[in-house]
């Protein structure tokens, strides 16, 4: 596990938590250990590695999860000997079991030297954590840029259904998960990553289907503008498309977040410059 320097740099003095841990953690809270070798609700298997922690403040959680100050959480810790009743720490965790209460697995923790109040309990620490989250979000965007063949800002000028040809490597099948491919013609306004494209136009394939398999994929409409993170089409079974009477490479834009509103263009440019 490598140290993620920008995030780590944002942490206050004495911080040992690595950036990757912070990035991976889905539930982060400051709390006080109330029981060792115990669990906070039935259905969680009790072991020497499970402890019960009373939540002092919640720093990060998905909105679906009910967790608030005063709740008791079961934490499966890596090293039980690092804790005793009354230990105050910030817990970086991942979700484990969700029932009448919450059980999580420790990815890392920070104990304030001297056993005082946990680091992240105060507003300054919360601001620091928020800053760290922003840096992690930037890193995720960097990763998205790095994995894309093209990153362009542009506008959709046409949308039409596209039928998979019989010659395609992936033949058309009638299933509820069929993507119902559509093609969007993208007029490029600026290329942020990738070589210049002939006539500044590209074909982007996207699923028109409302099926669960494609529920998070971006869908496009004529005149829609934004930033597109594009990959060469390796999904539909036909890697090229017809555009203005010529065969050109087709691209896809399938993951949630592969399209961003135009307002994000300055941030994307900034991250590209820092690369």
């Amino acid at each position, binding site marked *: 596990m490598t140290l993620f320097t920008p995030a780590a740099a944002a942490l206050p003095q004495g911080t040992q938590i690595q950036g990757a841990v912070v990035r991976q953690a889905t539930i982060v809270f400051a709390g006080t250990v109330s029981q060792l070798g115990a669990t906070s609700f039935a259905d969680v298997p009790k072991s020497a590695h499970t402890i019960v922690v009373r939540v002092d403040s919640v720093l990060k*959680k998905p909105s679906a*999860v009910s967790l608030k100050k005063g709740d008791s959480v079961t934490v499966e810790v890596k090293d039980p000997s690092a804790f005793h009743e009354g230990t105050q720490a910030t817990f970086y965790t991942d979700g484990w079991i969700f029932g009448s209460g919450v059980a999580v697995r420790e990815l890392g923790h920070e104990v304030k030297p001297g056993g005082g109040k946990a680091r992240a309990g105060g507003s300054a620490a919360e601001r620091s954590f928020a800053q760290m989250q922003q840096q992690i979000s930037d890193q995720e965007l960097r990763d998205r840029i790095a994995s894309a063949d093209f990153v362009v800002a542009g506008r959709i000028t046409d949308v039409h259904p596209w039928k998979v040809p019989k010659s395609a490597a*992936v033949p058309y099948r009638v299933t509820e998960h069929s993507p119902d491919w559509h093609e969007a013609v993208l007029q490029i306004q600026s290329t942020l990553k990738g070589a210049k494209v002939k006539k500044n136009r590209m074909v982007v394939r996207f699923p028109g289907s409302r099926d669960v398999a494609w529920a998070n994929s971006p869908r496009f409409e004529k005149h829609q503008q934004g930033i597109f993170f594009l990959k060469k089409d390796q999904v539909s079974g036909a890697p090229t498309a017809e555009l203005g009477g010529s065969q050109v490479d087709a691209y896809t834009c399938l993951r949630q977040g592969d399209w961003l509103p135009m307002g994000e263009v300055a941030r994307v440019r900034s991250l590209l410059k820092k690369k």
Partner: protein
Amino acid sequence: MKSFAVFWMRLLALAALALMFGTLFMLGQSSSIKVVNLIPASLSGETNQDSEPFLAVQTANPQVMVASAFTPNPVSSTGNAPVYVSQDGGSSWVLNAITPVQRMTCDITHAIATGENHPRGDLHAGTLACVASVTLDESETTDVSSSTAMSVQSTRSNVDQPFVRALAISNSDHIYVGVNDFNQPNGHTATVDVSVDGGATYKSVSVEARNTMGQDGPSIRPAVASDNTVYAAFFGWRKFDGKTATSDVVVVRDDAGGAGSNPFQALKDPSDNLPGRLVVQGVSIPWSNAPTLGQERIGSTLSIAVDPSNGSTVYVGWADRVGNGDIYTLHVRRSADRGVTWSNSDLPHTTIKDATNIALAVASDGVAGLLYQQLASGRWVTHLVQSRNAFATIQDIILANVPANAPAEQFLPYLGDYDYLLSVGNEFRGVFCASNMPDLANFPQGVTYQRAANFSTKTLTDGSGNPVAISIDPFYFSVPVIP
């Protein structure tokens, strides 16, 4: 004497408190019928469309159950997709992220096998992962309460809609997975994956013997009887124009658990002497991957159930379009001679207009159960029908009756391409999906919510008092088999 009176005063006060408390969480619940919203209290803030439910019961210990739905991993886009686990007979459920699929499955069914004596559930699952391409995993865990991800026993791509059943034969588990397998030659895609060694090895058996339009319909449904008889029903698609499939409803049978070298050949149709009895021929099944029946899509609802005590009695149900102004009509037929002959018209009370998600089960005393969801007067109405005389006379109870226009669809399917019903002792148990609006009028048999809900104001909260939008949730139910 005085202390005796104080004791009774305290007991009465305690009883009154218990009654008030119980009323909050088990509103209107009758003592014999149980309806439970599966979303745990700790996920009270969720607003997902948790559609397409399924259920598995550990028959050796029916307190242990596993349910599933299109429920994403609640905290991580890279974590495992979860299942719901109950160890108290369905009164409470926890979410345990153990399937081999990342974040959320795009199809999941499962069964708990009992031959290998795993007291906390030997769960076999068929899951689809839909990231760019569709991948089937057939997987197992021997302890559903464990947090260890299920181990994948078999995997392949280019298949659709796995449907898992299991049967214990002596000390071994037989697993049957109906799949629409596009890898099969000649468009004979209706397939049953058979394992007679607890999932260690699978053999894929095409059960289609006739010409198709290039493939069969998505639903291939196995059913197993305790005498080692295995049936499977499927839609033999003969023509398809993009909007309507002209289909036969076909039933195949194997008398040796599918273990022979040439399985599922036992039933031949007298019209062409090919394997697979044609229960009906040439019905019109609308195929619409868009909101068509209310906010739900339609195209492939099919169920088969065998009497667990008498492998000769088998029921099959499906939906098609009759053409009398209907959108989608359910039908049920019955065979009492191992699928050789079938009732030549729908059983009484089983031609049901504008309904979907048919699920059949037969109790050990021969009572047939029929679960379905009907769009009626702008509402989704979930029925459980029971009969002990092939539906000549019935008991029909409504489990849920909810508005069909809210919440708005997030994706398809809205409620699911299926729900599920099975029999356990003297109960029918099952799962369905519905709007989670906490309104007692929507649940005529009563309901228990684990998630934070205020039935007085008919609002959901996140556990901290903040309002939460309504969404589609999975519901478990248990209903006594009629006497």
